[in-house]
């Protein structure tokens, strides 16, 4: 059973890679850009020549030039190195939040769709309510109470609260349409338990959708954290894409003409998000094409 | 085009141009239509019937491409080349000839009332007939099809499948076109409803006096309402003739086998299906396209392609050895 499951998941992933190579340009472009950032975040950041939280390491307020390719901040930090660190933290937050919320969301959604009845109704109402509640004010209120010293993991946990409904909704609707298909009935009649059916039969089919959703959630999580940071309620001691913006605003970077301090995190966000968006739309359209071809 | 014909097709060739090659769906087709008749186009699925209708209608979109041949239509006494004046085709649609598509399930706009959808049909340009007149015409048509006038105030989802099909038929005949193409008009319906629809269409044709072209693979339907039949195989016409004549004494071996596969009351012998399957239109067989499945095939059939010839009075077949000749 386990062997069958992993074989199928493997097959699907290999198919995905094949599509990649046979060239959906969106997927290729998106992945290339994202990989570039990931390398910056996780590989290049290993080479930071100084402790990241120190101030006054380099001359302040220098525009981009040969020595300091992205310029420096008013606190005397090299923007390039800070960026690698910020990318690392932001991406980690994004992936952690996306992993947990997608996992929870999918479990909830699949259960609700599969079991139906009372359980379904309760879970769906819960899901819809969480989607409807405006998340930002509540998040702001909560994180404000930490006075800017919230731990990254705590922050991630908080972000998960509002990100699980979307995958849940999607997983449930897919489960509902798959439930009627004969291969599910076959599995059930041959004695496979609920978990077995879900893992073995359903997952391989919806794995690409989950992946697209996952990518999207990474984007949303990073965006939310950056938004909270901009307003000053994230963990301000850490370097993230959002806290870069925060500190730049605090030091009036725009008005003092130090445009690079804002441009770097803002520009990075725009390009990074574009690449994530490309990846997730490409995945959904590749696999919806395959679906209709079936 | 001879004087009394209303449609004349010569050497029509239309392929689907795909990356892997050309699908030769309509390959050198000749036929004609007279006024006041019901003509059936018969053949297995995939033989090119639907494509033929699309081309006759003027509905050629990529990857379908009309390569050569001509389609002549008689419009108010004038002979019009369908593919020479492309800008005019849209003007002719619905007024001079109409088209009933295959499935009636989703062809009606779900958010507009039926009466408004009829109204749209009459909005042809500057000179539109007044609303009252439109209403009278529509009500008369619905009545002839056995539909109550409440249908007008309804939305499509409130009507049953049979009712929707009749609404579609009404829409297709309301401007009194000379030709009505119907693509598998009864396939999606159950047998009882099917019979009703066929009877309605038959009566409608008699009342309007125009020409119906019924495309269907169902030989039973062909026998029930058509006057004349055009049998297609693999993109080519294999036989044309009066329906009764064909059923009594088919000329083309393919037609004979088609008829034999029909169940008949009282006949308890085993139904024979035709061995093999229709050829792939990407790469049809050389010579007569039916020869691999034909029980009477000779070496000539494998080499040369028989053309459609008049064998007897008003009966045509494309075969080197037509049955009984």
């Amino acid at each position, binding site marked *: 059973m386990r062997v069958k499951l992993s074989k199928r998941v493997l097959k699907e992933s290999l198919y995905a890679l094949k599509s990649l190579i046979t060239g959906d340009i969106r997927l290729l472009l998106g992945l290339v850009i994202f990989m570039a950032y990931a390398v910056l975040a996780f590989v290049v950041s290993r080479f930071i020549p100084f402790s990241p939280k120190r101030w006054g390491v380099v001359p302040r307020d220098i525009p981009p030039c040969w020595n300091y390719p992205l310029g420096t901040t008013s606190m005397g930090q090299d923007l390039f190195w800070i960026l690698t660190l910020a990318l690392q933290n932001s991406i980690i937050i994004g992936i952690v939040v996306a992993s947990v919320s997608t996992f929870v969301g999918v479990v909830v959604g699949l259960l609700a769709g599969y079991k139906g009845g009372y359980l379904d109704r309760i879970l769906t109402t819960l899901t819809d309510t969480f989607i409807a509640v405006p*998340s930002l004010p509540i998040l*702001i209120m909560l994180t404000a109470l930490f006075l800017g010293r919230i731990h990254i993991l705590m922050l991630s946990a908080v972000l998960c609260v509002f990100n699980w409904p979307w995958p849940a909704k999607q997983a449930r609707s897919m489960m509902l349409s798959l439930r009627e298909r004969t291969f599910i009935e076959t599995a059930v009649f041959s004695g496979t338990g609920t978990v077995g059916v879900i893992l073995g039969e359903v997952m391989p089919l919806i794995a690409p959708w989950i992946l697209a959703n996952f990518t999207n959630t990474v984007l949303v999580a990073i965006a939310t954290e950056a938004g909270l940071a901009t307003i000053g309620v994230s963990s301000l001691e850490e370097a993230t894409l959002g806290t870069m913006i925060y500190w730049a605003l605090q030091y009036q970077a725009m008005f003092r003409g130090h445009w690079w301090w804002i441009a770097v995190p803002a520009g990075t966000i725009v390009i990074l998000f574009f690449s994530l968006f490309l990846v997730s739309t490409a995945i959904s359209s590749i696999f919806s094409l395959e679906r209709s071809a079936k | 085009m001879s004087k009394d014909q209303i449609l004349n097709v010569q050497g029509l060739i239309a392929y689907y141009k795909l990356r892997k090659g050309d699908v030769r769906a309509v390959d050198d087709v000749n036929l004609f239509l007279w006024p006041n008749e019901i003509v059936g186009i018969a053949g297995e699925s995939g033989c090119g019937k639907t494509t033929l209708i699309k081309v006759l209608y003027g509905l050629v979109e990529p990857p379908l491409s009309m390569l050569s041949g001509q389609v002549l239509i008689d419009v108010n006494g004038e002979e019009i080349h369908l593919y020479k004046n492309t800008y005019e085709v849209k003007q002719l649609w619905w007024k001079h000839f109409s088209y009933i598509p295959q499935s009636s399930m989703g062809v009606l706009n779900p958010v507009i009332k039926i009466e408004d959808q009829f109204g749209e*049909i009459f909005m042809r340009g500057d000179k539109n007939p007044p609303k009252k007149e439109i209403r009278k015409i529509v009500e008369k048509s619905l009545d002839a099809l056995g539909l109550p006038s409440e249908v007008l105030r309804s939305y499509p989802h409130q009507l049953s499948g049979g009712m929707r099909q009749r609404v579609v038929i009404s829409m297709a005949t309301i401007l009194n076109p000379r030709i009505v193409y119907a693509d598998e008009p009864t396939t999606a319906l159950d047998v009882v409803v099917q019979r009703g629809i066929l009877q309605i269409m038959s009566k409608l044709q008699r009342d309007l006096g125009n020409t119906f072209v019924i495309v269907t693979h169902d030989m039973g339907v062909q026998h029930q309402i058509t006057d004349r039949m055009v049998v297609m195989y693999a993109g080519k016409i294999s036989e044309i003739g009066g329906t009764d004549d064909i059923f009594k004494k088919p000329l083309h071996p393919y037609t004979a086998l088609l008829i034999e596969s029909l169940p008949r009351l009282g006949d308890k012998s085993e139904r024979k299906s035709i061995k093999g399957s229709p050829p792939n239109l990407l790469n049809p067989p050389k010579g007569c396209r039916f020869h691999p499945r034909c029980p009477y095939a000779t070496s000539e059939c494998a080499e040369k392609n028989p053309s459609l010839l008049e064998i007897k009075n008003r009966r045509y077949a494309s075969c080197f050895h037509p049955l009984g000749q």
Partner: protein
Amino acid sequence: MRPIIKYAASRLVSYLLTIFIGITLCFIFPRFVPIDPVTTILSRTTQTGAFMEPEAFRAMRETLLETFGLKGSLQEQYFNFLRRAFTGDFGPSLSAYPSKVNDIIARSLPWTLGLLFSVSLISWVFGNLIGLLAGYYKDRKISKTLELFAMVIYPIPYYVMALILIFVFIFWLPLFPLMGAHAIGFKPSLSLEFLLTVLRHSFLPALSIVIVNLGWWILSMRALSTRISEEDFVRFAIVKGLRTRVILVRYYMRNALLPQITQLAMTLGNIFNGAILTEYLFAYPGIGAMLWWAVSSADVNLMMGIVTLSIIAVSTSALLIDLIYPLIDPRIRYGSK
């Protein structure tokens, strides 16, 4: 009429539940903070050097305990909390003592509402219009360019777009003023001068939300419109020789608008979130900016008030839209036979 009643009833239930759960979250969350929030705020207040009489200190402590619902047993706390939320009693603002929270909110709410309504309307209408045509002419170059444009714009967070606009139009080409909703010294009135200065000041904040939102509507409507073009009833309409205008309006638009209306209800919360940060960046005196003010001055009464209000406001708008929907969709209005 029965299907509508069922639909309205279930929407109403969801509405009440949403508000209920939202407010409950406000109750639960402060309990997860490691440092007791009351202490946090009290120490913040004394930190700033303000001297307080012991009496006042104790009174403040009481108020704070009430705000967070920390008095009494857990059930009592919850019950009181809910009661206060539903009766709209948020007490005095801690930072602008003794002004009442409700007054502060009442002053800033109209600005936010004005911004939100105009922004939502403009981007929805134009985005859908453009998307509709882009889907109808889906193979033309301009349609594909628009799609690309929308794909680049849509993922940009609202506040990043705000930063970009600030950079371009305030810093680089100083065309617009930065602060506030109107030039200093104006008293709100209905004079033309006042309206003009309001427009000038709210243009950029509105634009930043409109651009990003437009991206989303163009993208989703184009996809919807493309799907509609493949529907049987559209093909049949073409075959019937109907005029292009009729097809666009009655076949495309009428069918596409319905899901887009539902979408609007769902994205309201999103737009609201964006408005909060945008107001902060542009110092636009709506409740978003007030929220930031409350946060930075640890004014929890104001915070609670604004957050509760946001939950109610967004849910109510979504509810209203959801209730209008069945009146337009004939499939719900007249159920199936």
